[in-house]
């Protein structure tokens, strides 16, 4: 019967399981039957009544917000119960130990470990698995208790260099705002400052796999001396793959790794981009009073110079003036 068929096709259309042919068939059946077309159009247009939903959500949210900052209830309760019993028996001396133990357990559940390099400083740290990490100025790295389980996940904002201890059973994954890097035993550099519209991954040794958040199906494998650059202009991302030179022995004047030795290296970069690096390196804020200077192309190496000396070095190749007020640097023509 036709009405049976219409019902079946309407059902498929509603649950988004209808094929193109089935949709066309439904269309034809409905054209031939105005009565069925009328009821179909009513059913088609039924949707959620949005009125009042936002208010409902707001009120509910107010109720749950205070509960979100509390630690997981079940885990705490069990531990507190155990602790209370133990303390009663062992007495005061044990209190300190018990407290430490409880605190350690508690922290392991609830908190993330965070390593931050303040502006104007680079840092070197050792992760629990023996992996060495260098953080460039103004960078942040965090991980939680899962780090020691089956996977090693870290969250990064800023620029870091990693020397990862190889362990095939426990993949090492670096998450940044725009991309993830799956490490396959290696040393490499990641630059992904939240306020930059550019993310970079550069491999020194080994192999990594990069996954872009915006197109998860796109996976890029990087080999030594390969660098992936993800630039975002407006809403579009563009990818490019470039080679970068090998560091010559101790004289590692490669921008990707030199920052670890407090060196600031730049090659054919715009003044604007160099200024951004300098802001992090020297913990200053740099503003251009003349827009055209931003586009000047600069190359150079700074080694542990102060901001004044660095700017004076730049003046040797590019004519500009600067003045410094506290931590604010003004660049003008």
């Amino acid at each position: 019967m036709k009405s049976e068929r219409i019902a079946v096709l309407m059902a498929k259309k509603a649950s988004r399981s209808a094929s193109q042919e089935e949709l066309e068939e439904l269309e034809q059946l409905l054209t031939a039957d105005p009565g069925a077309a009328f009821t179909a159009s009513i059913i088609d247009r039924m949707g959620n009544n949005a009125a009042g939903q936002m208010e409902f959500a707001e009120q509910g949210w107010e109720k749950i917000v205070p509960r979100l900052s509390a630690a997981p209830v079940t885990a705490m309760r069990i531990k507190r119960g155990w602790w209370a019993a133990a303390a009663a028996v062992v007495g005061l001396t044990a209190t300190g130990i018990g407290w430490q133990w409880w605190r350690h357990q508690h922290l392991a559940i609830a908190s993330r470990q965070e390593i931050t390099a303040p502006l104007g400083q680079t840092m070197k740290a050792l992760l629990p698995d023996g992996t060495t990490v260098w953080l460039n100025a103004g960078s942040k790295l965090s991980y939680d208790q899962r780090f020691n389980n089956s996977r090693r996940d870290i969250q990064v904002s800023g620029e870091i260099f990693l020397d990862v201890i190889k362990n095939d059973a426990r993949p090492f994954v670096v998450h940044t705002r725009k991309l993830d890097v799956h490490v396959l035993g290696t040393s490499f550099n990641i630059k992904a400052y939240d306020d930059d519209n550019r993310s970079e991954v550069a491999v020194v040794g080994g192999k990594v796999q990069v996954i872009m958040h915006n197109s998860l199906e796109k996976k890029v494998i990087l080999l030594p001396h390969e660098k992936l650059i993800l630039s975002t202009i407006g809403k579009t991302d563009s990818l490019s793959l470039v080679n970068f030179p090998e560091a010559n022995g101790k004289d590692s004047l490669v921008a990707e790794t030199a920052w670890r030795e407090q060196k600031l290296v730049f090659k054919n970069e715009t003044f604007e981009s160099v200024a951004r690096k300098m802001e992090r390196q020297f913990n200053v804020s740099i503003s251009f009073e003349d827009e055209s200077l931003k586009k000047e192309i600069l190359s150079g190496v700074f080694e542990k110079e102060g901001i004044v000396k660095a700017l004076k070095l730049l003046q040797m190749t590019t004519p500009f003036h600067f003045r410094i007020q506290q931590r604010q640097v003004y660049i003008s023509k």
Partner: protein
Amino acid sequence: MHVTMEELLYRIQFHDDQLAFKALYQQQVFRLYQFAFAFVKQRQPAEEIVNDVFVKLWQKRHQLDKIGQIRVYLYVAVKNAALNQLRRPAIFTETDLDSLHVQHFRLEPDTEQLLLTHELQQAIASAVEQLPPKCKMIFKLVKQDELSYKEVAGILGISPKTVDAQLAIAMKKLAARLQCFAPVPALPDAGEKND
């Protein structure tokens, strides 16, 4: 909301982003509340069930990537909590006045385009309410909550074929109930059509 679900989940898991969590809550809470209400038939317990599910989700946020389909997960969590609640001895013995408000959450057709009469709106609401329970729930999940047949199958623990079959029953019943509202041809000589 221009942020994708993936982006929201990522921010919640790795940035502990409460604003992202709030966005997820706002997107889903009302639907889940309606779903919970369908089981427990009382406003306050339904609200509590849904809020508990969200609080637990926040506590487990660092394992979010282990959850396959977040929407299915939320509905299933609400369903399980609601069924557990029903198994417990009833705490609310007096009639829950709030349950009268359920009419607010009926399906609303797009009134402007159809110029529906009040009578027809009532008929639509009551036609949906009169569907057999399972049929009604599936119809609401698909039409109201915009879930796919696969998601509905996952939530209710039935096969996708059953979802489509139940939906077809709903469509047939609704069509039968609403047919009498179809505009009659204006000309007097237009014959009655027998289907």
